[in-house]
């Protein structure tokens, strides 16, 4: 049984590595991500948001929903710690 599991792991790993062969090269300017959405952000950030730091404008403006979710995750983590660790009644 252990041997079958090991073979399954290696097969899945080999499939995943085979899948990366079709990926675009690292930093390839002709890859779909670099041709479509990145130039749009690079060209329009200062024009649209008056923010020189592209990372900030993508994080808080173009991807604002995502950052709202991240903040909620941190909030939830804090509340979960309060519920699990803190003793409310003394």
């Amino acid at each position: 049984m252990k041997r079958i599991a090991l073979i399954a792991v290696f097969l899945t790993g080999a499939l995943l590595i085979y899948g990366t062969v079709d990926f675009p090269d690292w930093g390839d300017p002709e890859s779909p991500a670099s041709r479509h959405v990145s130039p749009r952000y690079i060209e329009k950030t200062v024009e649209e948001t008056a923010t020189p730091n592209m990372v900030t404008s993508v994080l808080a403006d173009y991807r604002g929903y995502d950052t709202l979710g991240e903040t909620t995750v941190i909030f939830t983590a804090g509340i979960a710690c309060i519920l699990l660790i803190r003793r409310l009644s003394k």
Partner: protein
Amino acid sequence: MISHFDDLIIRTVCRLLIPFIQLFGLYVIAHGHSSPGGGFQGGVILGASFILLSLSHGIEELRKRMRIRTILILTSLGVIIYAGIGFACLFLGGKYLDYGRLHLVLPVDSVVARSMGILGVEVGVGITVMAVMVSIFLDLAAEEKEKKEAEQHGIHHQ
């Protein structure tokens, strides 16, 4: 328990450093527009300054300056600021988190209003991150203290 640390050098250095650490945290939050930084990083620096205060001056000192209730309110306040700015954009006729609409209430044009909206949500993120860090630290430290007290009581009863 983290108690009053009786070392003049540590206490003095921490007392001198903490205001500058907090100022730097506020700078990282406010300057996220044009340098690396933002709400998450600045909030962590602010939270670390409060943790340093309790490490050097004892946990009771931190409790005196920041009550548990205040920390809980700040934790929620950050998310409320973020979501509230989103809803403000919604009520001003835009989409959710479409900061350009804030130019109707702010004395700036819609492009600079987007920048102001980014600053607003970064402040919200910073407040939540700071409060959650302090809250988790206080919970863990308080747990330690209660355990010690329970152990001492156990020994006393024997």
